[in-house]
Structures are given as C-alpha cells and as structure tokens.
C-alpha cells in the first residue's frame, strides 16, 4: 500500500511541479533543447509511475507464490504487510491489468501515429519526385506554387530514396516558389537552417512520442500540456540553428510566411507559437548558465530514478530489515 500511495503522490506532485516551474519558465526559452529533455523526463516519469502503481498492487500476490518456500515465510508476511491493499486479490488483478493495458495502449497508439506519418510522408515524397524541382546543391526541393510555404518531410527512409533518385542530402526540405519570391537570400538561409535542424534533431520523433502519450492518458492534462510545449520548444530549438546575425532575418521570415498564406481550417496554437518565436528572436540569444544546466540534468535524473525507488523501496526494506534480520526488526 505504501508503494502505491508513494507512487501516486509522486505522479501528482511531479505534474503540479511541471505546471508550476516548467510550463511557463523563462529558462525553457533560453535552452529549448534541454527543456524538451526535461519535459520528456516528466511525461515518461509520470507515465512510468502510473504503470508501476498498477504493478505495485500485484507485487504482494506475486510474492505470495513464494510462500511455498519455507525460508521465505517470514519475508512474505512482511511483504503482505508492506503492500497491504484494501481489497486484496481483486484490486491486485485490476492493478496488473491496468498496468499492462496502459503499456499496450501506448505502444499501439505510438505505432498507429508513426505508421500513419510514414505513409503520408511516402506519398508526399512520391508526389514531390514528380512535381518538385530538386536542388541538391541548395539543399531543398522547389515546388511551383504561389502560396509561400516551407516545410520538411522527416525520416531517414526519404533521405535514402532521394539519394537513390540521384539527389543528395537535404531533400527533406520543401520550399514553394511563393516562399522563394517572398524571402531575401539571407532569410531563406535562416529558414533552411531551421528546417535542417528539425531533420537532424529528429523532432518528429519527440513530437510523435509526446502526442502518443497525450492520447494514451486522455484526460490527464499534463500530457497535453507537455505535447504542446515540446512542439513549441522544438520550433525554438530549430530557430537557434540560425547564426546569431541571422536571428532578425529569421524573425522577418516568420512574420512574412506566417501572414502571407491563406489560413486553412481552424486557427490552431501555431499562431501563438509564431508570436512567441518572433519575440524571442527579436532579442539576442542568452545561453543557459552552467548551474542551470546542472539543475536541469539533476531534475531529469531524479524524475527517472524516483519512481523506481518508490516502487522498490518497500520490498527492499522488507527483505533486508525483516527477512535478513530474522524477522526481529519490525518497522
């Protein structure tokens, strides 16, 4: 029981702490890459904690089977005490089923999202091969269309295919004629650096994983918040690929391309992200100081280790204090 309570408390506290100190923290804009890592640690830690909480309900039952062995009798009694659950076996089954169901659900959603993305990308690459003009030396594919638009199609697969088709690296970046006409050469440089940074960092994977977690734990706001933040921070991290002197060019490009196209469908959070990015680019980059980095690394480590400790400590305590101490110590 103590393990379950500890884990649930940890999940709640971590979510609250992330909302309080991570969601709107100015430092995340200074070091978006590190902030993405911390968000990933938060989400996987909370998700892992919830799965472990389900597993913790099963643990006493698992140890009951050891009861057959004479030498573990005292140990089991203590474990049963440590992991005492209100409704016993029924709850243990429910916990186990919930833990497995969560893990399966996440895996399923992740693979659906990823395979859907793959098939969309495959079809888009096929079309690009037909209607695009490949400029290997410039590192992008030009599409003859008036709407100014720049985007990238992530994936190693595509790089290989475009290579086979006679191209070289950089074929994941698509620029329309409209965008080429709207941007100055220096602005275009900044935009291309941004897109290549996305492809290099595999931001698509980070975003897909965050969305899969969001859909797995529908109703838990922390996962939706994390997915939204990670998406925004990925844009900012890619913006930082532009050279220091290019930041204003990139801001200008954002303003140009963010207002020039025809908005399609509902206006998402994308516009707000664009505003935040332009604000950020209007000022010089301030890297996160050393202590800040260390604190972030510490947070990631804690988030990963704490759930495991919380899940295991009651068992370990029981084993060492009671079994190994001949059951004389009762804590």
């Amino acid at each position, binding site marked *: 029981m103590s393990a379950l309570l500890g884990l649930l408390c940890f999940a709640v506290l971590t979510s609250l702490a992330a909302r309080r100190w991570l969601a709107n923290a100015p430092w995340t804009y200074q070091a978006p890459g590190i902030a993405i890592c911390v968000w990933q640690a938060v989400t996987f830690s909370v998700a892992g904690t919830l799965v472990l909480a389900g597993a913790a309900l099963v643990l006493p039952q698992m140890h009951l089977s050891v009861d057959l062995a004479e030498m573990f009798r005292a140990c089991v009694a203590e474990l049963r005490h440590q992991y005492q659950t209100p409704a016993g076996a029924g709850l243990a089954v429910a916990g186990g089923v919930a833990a497995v169901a969560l893990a399966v659900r996440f895996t399923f959603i992740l693979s659906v999202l990823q395979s859907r993305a793959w098939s969309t990308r495959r079809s888009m690459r096929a079309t690009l091969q037909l209607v695009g003009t490949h400029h290997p030396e410039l590192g992008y594919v030009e599409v003859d269309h008036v709407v100014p638009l720049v985007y990238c199609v992530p994936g190693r697969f595509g790089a290989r295919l475009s290579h086979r088709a006679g191209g070289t690296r950089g074929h994941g970046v698509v620029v329309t004629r409209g965008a080429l006409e709207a941007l100055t050469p220096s602005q275009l440089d900044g935009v291309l650096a941004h897109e290549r940074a996305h492809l290099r960092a595999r931001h698509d994977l980070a975003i897909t994983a965050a969305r899969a977690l969001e859909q797995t734990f529908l109703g838990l706001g922390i996962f939706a918040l994390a997915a939204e933040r990670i998406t925004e921070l990925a844009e900012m991290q890619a913006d930082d690929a532009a050279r220091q002197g290019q930041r204003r060019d990139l801001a200008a490009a954002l303003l140009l391309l963010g207002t020039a196209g025809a908005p399609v469908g509902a206006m998402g959070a994308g*516009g707000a992200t664009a505003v935040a990015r332009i604000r950020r680019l209007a000022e010089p980059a301030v890297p996160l100081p050393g202590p800040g980095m260390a604190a972030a690394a510490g947070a990631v480590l804690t988030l990963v280790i704490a759930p495991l400790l919380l899940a295991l400590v009651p068992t370990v305590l029981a084993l060492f204090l009671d079994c190994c101490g001949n059951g004389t110590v009762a804590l």
Partner: protein
Amino acid sequence: MRQLGSLEAEVMRRLWDARGPMAVRDVLDDLQRDRDIAYTTVMTVLDNLHRKDLVVRSKRGRAYVYSPAQSREERTAELMGEVLTDAGDRGVALLRFVEQMSPGEVAELRQLLGELGEPLDDIHSDHTGGPA
C-alpha cells in the same frame, strides 16, 4: 501513392512537358536524347504508370497513346492542400516552418517590434492580413 522509380518520375515529367498524348515511341525518342534506353523498358514504365492511375491511355490507330491523368498544376495544388491541412499543430507527418497567425497576433507583433525599433515593419503590407 506508391513510391515511384526515378525512371517513372522521369517519364511522368516528359508527359507533362509534352503538348499532347504520347505514344511509347514518342516517349522513347524523347528519352533517347539524354540516355540509352530500350523500347520495352519505356513500355513497361508507361504500363506501370497506367496501373498506378497516374496516366490515362487511349487507342490511336493500333498503338496506345498516353497522357497524364492530372496536370502538374493539379497535382501540385493537391499536394499543397495536403500540406496545409495536415492539421498543422496536430499532425506529425511533417513540420511546417510556421503556422498562420491571426490578424490580432500580427497587430500585437507589429506594436512590439515597433517599440523595440526592429526594422521588421519594412515588410510589404500586402503580405499581411487574411487569405490571399
């Protein structure tokens, strides 16, 4: 759509650049200006493109003539439509450089950048605001 071989893409481009429907022989002559290629290869490629619904064919005399099922412009517009409606911030298939901003957001930015004295307001005003 399935991934196309580079030769299929090449033949597709020739068909688009052509004035009218092309017979296998026409495509072959066109291609042979740039490379050495066999009649049967071209025939197979056109057959593949037809199977993939990328070209339509009709009889002219005893031979088939081929023309693109969709114009290049239609295909491009379709692609751009897919990109724009890839649910922007929800989709994970591709990453767009920037989402569209609302007029309110643009006004807010202009004000901010004006205060900072940033030289961003020399952007042509005809690029701002709603649908093009």
